[in-house]
Structure formats: structure tokens, C-alpha cells
């Protein structure tokens, strides 16, 4: 939790302190770089993030992806600092504007009293406006200086690295580390590329922006001794899957899932596994199920449209009881929707895709670190209960970079491939125990080999339309989830255990909701929050928790019903029948901001709920 009492860049312009008045150490800062997608702003952003990680700072990034292939305006925002960084930042402390359109589109996002660092080759700011908002302008002819430094061949390619130098100077960053980063970034490239990059870096570092920005240096974070990794949610998910024991995967490309499969395709062979790009999503889940049947820990994934195509096979996985991880990196929907925007509107699909009574597990990571650890838990659950697990990431998590402690692999449990020792006898669908298939290759000594099937079946997998059998098998499939629910960690409330308002969330909004609680506290208002990683089955004890609050607001990025509830809100209402559960939902394709959440809370309205 970010300690609000430490000196920080003023988040609240109302306190009147000018940024120019005193030189100070800052705890965290939000830097937004706005340019075009071709400018390499993503690599500066990523380097800044990595640098933060290497300095044991916390970091979270945010980026937008231009809607067209040919590129276009794009931003990359880095929130880094010594405290716990929970959001990519509602507003920025520093705006870097490469072009006039960057300046115009993003000035609103710069907080009053912030700093505008602009490329004076392209941008002409409106000084009147800046003055009124107490924004400090710092114009640097980045384009022309870069060309100058690199020898005037007209390349502006180093502009981003030049900017890196500027920022290194402004924040008093460790130049040794920065140079190392740059060398790593261009490793394998031509010598001259690295040389040019270092030239540009030094050029930026040497340029004096005046006394505006050289005044800041980040507070020293507490040394934990444990190095930090920085990566995107998609990367963390892929590494988590590998750590979990996944050795086969199959999928079809789709934004924003694609990087997961690309990485697994590249990396799995190093672990003796493989990843298959199939002709479509139906083939993908089928191949993954085939491998899982073979005893290999297996997964598939997609985004909303592709998961829809997998629906029939998901129903099969439930019926045949095949363990499998199914990742949905959600984007804006419905249909092709908003492919490069964020939304949490696939929860209903995750819960209900496919026909018939088909209970499956649904889980969602709260942040990048979770993408790594929770996927390991998901794979464990899939195998313990022979059940498909739907894993709901989203576009925001997929693309944002966060830092977290280098995992200690020795403490993690990996699911091994299914054993194939000979068995005396085997019933595929034993009613007395949780299903655990004997993979093909297993000798069954009594000579009766098992059938795996999507027809309703007897305990040994033969078709049966017997009424009792169907009822018993339906219960068997459902009861696994009941057993899992009992095993889940009890939900933890952040903030006071009872009170006026509880915010409930799931998925990528984890940090934003916690930050909302903190921000409210700093404004003198007490909130609590609860973040659900397990959406089906839900952990036990939710009703008791909700009853301790007058209002329960479920914050989610999806559409609401007439009661104002989104997907999770409705689920929780169905589960607990509490009308105090309402929703704070939106469908604009953007991540929540702390401000948006706080603004939508009732004004000290404490009237008890009507039943």
C-alpha cells in the first residue's frame, strides 16, 4: 500500500505547493509518452519498466494499440516508484509529447502542476493554458537533436533513446544500468546499431533541460534482496503455464491472446513440449483435449470469439472429464467488437459456454504476478478434479508490464504427466471417487479398457440412458466443484472488515480497486474491498462478509442489467440474494480509473437496504 504521508509529487493541485518551489525526492511518478506507434515509444516504456524492476521499484505500465495496421497515434504510460504501484496511474505527472496531436490529445490527462516535456521540433504548446494549469513546459528539439547526434542522416530512429537519456537525467537514473539495458535490447544486432543507440542516449543525457526536471530523484526503495522480474501479463501467463507443467498447447491466433501462443510455441520445445497452431479454434481445443487424454498437461486459449467456437468442446471436456486449461484473454465485445480494447464481458460465457449442465472452474488473475501464480493453481485444479478450467485474463493485463519478485521455483508444484503404470482394474467414471483417467498406454490387467465419451455413461464409460445413471453422473460432475469450493482460501477483505461500503472486483481491476480504497482513505473516507480470483465455484463465506457492509458495489468492465449489476454482480445476487449488491460497471473499452470508481459511490447515503 502506498503510504500517503511520504513526500510525493503532488497528486492534488489543491494543496497549492508548486512543483518548482522545492527540490525533492519523489516516491513515484507517472510518465506518459505520446507519439505514433512507429516511434518506438513502447521500447522506451518497456526499458523504463525494466529499469524500475532492476532498481527494486514497483512499476505498472499501460499502452494503447492503434486500431489500424498501418499504425497511428499511440501512448505508453509508466507508473514507477518506491512504494507499491497498484495502477498505471489515472493522470500523469509528466507528459512527453512527440507531436502536436500527442500534445492536444493528452494534455487533459496531465495533472495540474505537472510537467510537459515536448519535442519542440513538432509541438507548439499553448502557454496560456499551461500557465493556468500550473504546468511546467520543457521544450526540447528532440527530433533535430537526435538527427544531429546521429550524424544527420535524416533518421529519427533514435528519438526514443534520446528521450530515454533525457529522462535518465531528469530522474537521476543509474546510467550504468540504462546502458546495460540498451546493450541487451540491441543484443545480436549490428555493432553500429548499439553504438548509435548509446550516442542518442548520451545526447539526451547531456542535454540540460534547465532546472525543471533535474530536481527529482526517486526515493530509495527498501531493498528486499530478491530481484524483480518485469513482464507483461501475457508473458507471465505463458511462463506460469510452463511452470505449471503444461507441455502441450494448441490455438489459433487472435488479439490479444496471440502473444501467449507465440511465446509458448517458441519456448515449449525447450521443455520437451510443443505448441500447435491449428486451422481454427475448434481444432485447437480438440488437439489440446487429445493431448490431455494422452496424459500430457495441456492447454488452449483464445479471446472471446474463439472461446465461443470452443463451446461445444468445453461441454465435452466437462462430460468426458478431461483436465484442461482454457485461457480467455478478453477484449471488447460482442462479436469482433473492440479487438484492442479491454473489457470483462466474457464472464458469462466462461461460466456458461456450451450446452447442458456443464460445471467447469472459472478463475481470473488480479494482476501480472497472478497471471504467473494463478495459472499454476488453475492447472493443479484442472488435474485434481479432471475438469476444464476457464482462465480469464484481459487486454489490459495482457499488455501491461508489472514488476514482481523473481519466483522461487523450488516452492512451486508442477503437475507431472499422467502416470502410466499398469493397473489391476480401472473404471473411467467411478462414482465413488473423483475421476482420474488412465491414459492410453496404461495396461489394465483385468483386460477391460476404458472408454472416454461425451455420451452419458456408466462408470466404465459405456453409453447409458438409465435415468438413475444420468442423475448420478450429473451430480458427480457438479460435486467436484462443491468439493473444490471447500478447499478454496477464504476471501480476504482489504480494509476494515465491516463498514459502509465494500467494493468487490475480479480480474485486472485488482490494483485499481485497492488504490481506490487507499485514495478514499487519504480523503478521509473508509472503504473496504474484496477481490475474487475464483468465480466458479465461488469461495465460501461471501454472504457473511457482504452482510457486514451496508452497500456492496461490484466493479466490473461490462454491461449492467436494470438493477445496475454486471456479470459478477448478478452472479453474487443469485448466490446470496442480497439487494445491497449493486454494480459499478462501464463499457467504454478503457480500464477503470480510481476517480471513476470513487465518483460513482453514493454520497454518505447510509439508509439501510430495503429487502
Amino acid at each position: 500500500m502506498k503510504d500517503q504521508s511520504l513526500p510525493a509529487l503532488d497528486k492534488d493541485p489543491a494543496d497549492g505547493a508548486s512543483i518548482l518551489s522545492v527540490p525533492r525526492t519523489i516516491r513515484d511518478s507517472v510518465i506518459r509518452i505520446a507519439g505514433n506507434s512507429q516511434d518506438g515509444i513502447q521500447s522506451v516504456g518497456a526499458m523504463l519498466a525494466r529499469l524500475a524492476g532492476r532498481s527494486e521499484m514497483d512499476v505498472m505500465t499501460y499502452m494503447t494499440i492503434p486500431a489500424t495496421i498501418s499504425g497511428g497515434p499511440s501512448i505508453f504510460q509508466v507508473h514507477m516508484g518506491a512504494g507499491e504501484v497498484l495502477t498505471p496511474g489515472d493522470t500523469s505527472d509528466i507528459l512527453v509529447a512527440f507531436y502536436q496531436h500527442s500534445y492536444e490529445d493528452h494534455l487533459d490527462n496531465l495533472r495540474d502542476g505537472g510537467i510537459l516535456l515536448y519535442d519542440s521540433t513538432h509541438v507548439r504548446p499553448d502557454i496560456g493554458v499551461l500557465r493556468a494549469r500550473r504546468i511546467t513546459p520543457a521544450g526540447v528539439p528532440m527530433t533535430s537533436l537526435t538527427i544531429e547526434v546521429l550524424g544527420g542522416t535524416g533518421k529519427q530512429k533514435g528519438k526514443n533513446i534520446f528521450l530515454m537519456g533525457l529522462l535518465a537525467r531528469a530522474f537521476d537514473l543509474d546510467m550504468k544500468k540504462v546502458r546495460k539495458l540498451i546493450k541487451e535490447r540491441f543484443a545480436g544486432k549490428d555493432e553500429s546499431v548499439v553504438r548509435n543507440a548509446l550516442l542518442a542516449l548520451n545526447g539526451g543525457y547531456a542535454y540540460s533541460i534547465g532546472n525543471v526536471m533535474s530536481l527529482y530523484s526517486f526515493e530509495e526503495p527498501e531493498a528486499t534482496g530478491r530481484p524483480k522480474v518485469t513482464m507483461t501479463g501475457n508473458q507471465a501467463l505463458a511462463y506460469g503455464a510452463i511452470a505449471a507443467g503444461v507441455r502441450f498447447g494448441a490455438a489459433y491466433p487472435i488479439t490479444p491472446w496471440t502473444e501467449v501462443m507465440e511465446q509458448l510455441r517458441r519456448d515449449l520445445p525447450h521443455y520437451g513440449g510443443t505448441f500447435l497452431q491449428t486451422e481454427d479454434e475448434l481444432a485447437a481445443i480438440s488437439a489440446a483435449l487429445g493431448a490431455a487424454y494422452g496424459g500430457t498437461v495441456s492447454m488452449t486459449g483464445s479471446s472471446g470469439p474463439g472461446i465461443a467456437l470452443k463451446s461445444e468442446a468445453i461441454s465435452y471436456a466437462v462430460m468426458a472429464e478431461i483436465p484442461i486449461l482454457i485461457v480467455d484473454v478478453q477484449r471488447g465485445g460482442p462479436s469482433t467488437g473492440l479487438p484492442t480494447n479491454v473489457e470483462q464481458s466474457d464472464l458469462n460465457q466462461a461460466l456458461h459456454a456450451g450446452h447442458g449442465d456443464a460445471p467447469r472452474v472459472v478463475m481470473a488473475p488480479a494482476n501480472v504476478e497472478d497471471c504467473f501464480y494463478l495459472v499454476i493453481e488453475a492447472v493443479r485444479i484442472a488435474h485434481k478434479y479432471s475438469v476444464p478450467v476457464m482462465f480469464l485474463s484481459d487486454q489490459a493485463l495482457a499488455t501491461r508490464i508489472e514488476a514482481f519478485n523473481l519466483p522461487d521455483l523450488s516452492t512451486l508444484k508442477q503437475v507431472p504427466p499422467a502416470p502410466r503404470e499398469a493397473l489391476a482394474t480401472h473404471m473411467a467414471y467411478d462414482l465413488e471417487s473423483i475421476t482420474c483417467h488412465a491414459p492410453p498406454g496404461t495396461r489394465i490387467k483385468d483386460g477391460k479398457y476404458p472408454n472416454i465419451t461425451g455420451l452419458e455413461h456408466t462408470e466404465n464409460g459405456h453409453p447409458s440412458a438409465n435415468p438413475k445413471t444420468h442423475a448420478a453422473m450429473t451430480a458427480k460432475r457438479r460435486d467436484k466443484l462443491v468439493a473444490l469450493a471447500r478447499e478454496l482460501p477464504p476471501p480476504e477483505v482489504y480494509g476494515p472488515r465491516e463498514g459502509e461500503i465494500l467494493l468487490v472486483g475480479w480480474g485486472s481491476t485488482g490494483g485499481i480497486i485497492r488504490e481506490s480504497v487507499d485514495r478514499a482513505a487519504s480523503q478521509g473516507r473508509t472503504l473496504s474491498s474484496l477481490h475474487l480470483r475464483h468465480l466458479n465455484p465461488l469461495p465460501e463465506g461471501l454472504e457473511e462478509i457482504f452482510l457486514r457492509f451496508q452497500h456492496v458495489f461490484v466493479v466490473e468492465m461490462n454491461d449492467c442489467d436494470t438493477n445496475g449489476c454486471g456479470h459478477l454482480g448478478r452472479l453474487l445476487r443469485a448466490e446470496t440474494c442480497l439487494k445491497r449488491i449493486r454494480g459499478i460497471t462501464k463499457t467504454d473499452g478503457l480500464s477503470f480509473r480510481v476517480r471513476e470508481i470513487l465518483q460513482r459511490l453514493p454520497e454518505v447515503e447510509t439508509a439501510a437496504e430495503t429487502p
Partner: protein
Amino acid sequence: MQDTNTSFPETAANGTAAPEHAHTLTKAQLKADKPTWCPGCGDFAVLAAYQKLLEKLNVPQESIVTLSGIGCSSRFPYFVNTHSVHYIHGRILPFTTGLSLTRPDLHPFVFIGDGDAFSIGGNHFDHCARKNVRMTVIVMDNQVYGLTKKQTSPTSPVGFRSKTDPWGSKVTALNPTKKLISSGASFVARTIAANPAHLLEMLEEATNHDGFSVVECLSECVQFNGGCFDGAVPRKGGEFPLVPDDHDVTDEEAAYALTKKRFPGYFGVYYKSRRPTLNETEAEIVGQAESRPKGLLASEVLMSALERLT
């Protein structure tokens, strides 16, 4: 972290683990549920041939996997006592792909109907063929949807009267061998359930082929398409023309030309050629990747990858 370093099991020359000793199977061992097909259905003969094949195959019983989609023909797995899978309609090929790639020690046999194979499942055939995934597929072609009681199938001939074409189908039928040859299947043969000896021969050849091998087997649906294949049954006055002796099975164009012959068409092996299987090329990629971080355990490889991200 438990280190399993899961990899593809050791691959023998042709991608299958060599059996250690003789594993002669008996008919009794292979018997499972009593088939629920209509009396007289061609599918019985396919089942019998498969059991004979397995008896001769000399591999451990547990290494045989019988897989199917949905249809009368796809009830197959219940009637033979092996590890078996009854999957969903039209998708058993990709399912088997996942199994085949990860378990080269197994022998996957797929049994499906013409609708499952060429209507809903048609695209998977093209891509499995192109990628040459190691498996043997037997399409039990009765030129009709049996299980759902007589609708037109892609292989139903023009004029066929079904419940969805009461006035007779007017659409060009799909020619299975033509589709398979053009999409790159590396073994394509055609046979008929009514000729058990030929059927068994084709199954054996297909099984011995290393790659994506497909047998189109005409199998009469006595219930909804009775007599449809009489023209290919000599004892019913039909003829059973074999693929000409001088046909070069490695010549794709010649094989394609063979498919032109009108019903009953040719029976036998149309096309057969050895080219790298997806199993081989993927194993090669794995082999190369694994050899790089020499001797490292999976967890060490992962650790160093994560360390690169610090």
C-alpha cells in the same frame, strides 16, 4: 518444483515404439459391448476386419487407441476393447492430432462416417493431410446420415432421395479419394465392407504407412440406403475393379485421374508416398531446442528465462 522434463517419449525409426515382445491378441480379448448396429449393416464387417488387424498387429493391447466422432459408424469404440474415445461430431481428427503428436508410442485408429468426415469435419481432413499427421483413418462411407435417419450426405449421389431431399439430391457429390489426394494425404486407399479380404488388406497397408493414412471404406446402410453398393459386389451382379496394376501410387496426378472413374470406381491403393510427418518435424524442433541448454532440467531452463527478465 518437481522436475519431470516431460518430453516426447523416445521415438523409434518410424515414430512408433518398437514392441518388446509378441503381443498376439485374441478375438475374445478385443470383444466389448455387443454392437447396436442394424442387422446387416456394413459396419459389422469393418469391426471384424479391425479385430483381425489387431490380432495380427503384434503390439501391446494398451498401445492401441480407437477413436471416433459421432454417427452410427462412430459407435465403433464401444464394440472393441481398447483404450478408446468417442468424441464430438466432426472433430476427432484434431483430437487425434494432439494425441499423436504427444504420444508416438501409441497406434491411433480413427473410425468415422462420411458426414462426420466430409461434411462438418471436412476442413480438418485438409489440414491433417497437408501436415501429414501420423494416424490411420477409416471413413465408413454409407453415402447417407445413418444415425440421424436418412439425410443427404456430401457423398450421396445425385438423385438420392432422403428426408432432406425428398425430390432427390441435385448437388454434385463429394469424391472422397479426390479430396484426400488433392489435400495431400500421404496414403489414400478405397475398399468396401462387403469384401472383407480386400478391406483387411487395405487396413494393413494403411497401418503400415508412416503418416496420415486414410481408407475410404464403402459400408452399406441397410436401413436407409439399402443396396446402394450392390454395383460393387460381384455376388450381387456388380463389379469390383481393382486399381490397375501399372498404376504408380506415388504419382499424384495419376491417382487424381483414377478418381474420375464412375461408380463403382477403383478399389485399392490410389496414392502412397513418404514425406516428413508433422510428428517428425515437431520432434526435430523439440530435439534442437532441448539440445541447446544442454542437460539442464526444465526448472533450470525456466529459471534462466525468468532471470533474463530481471
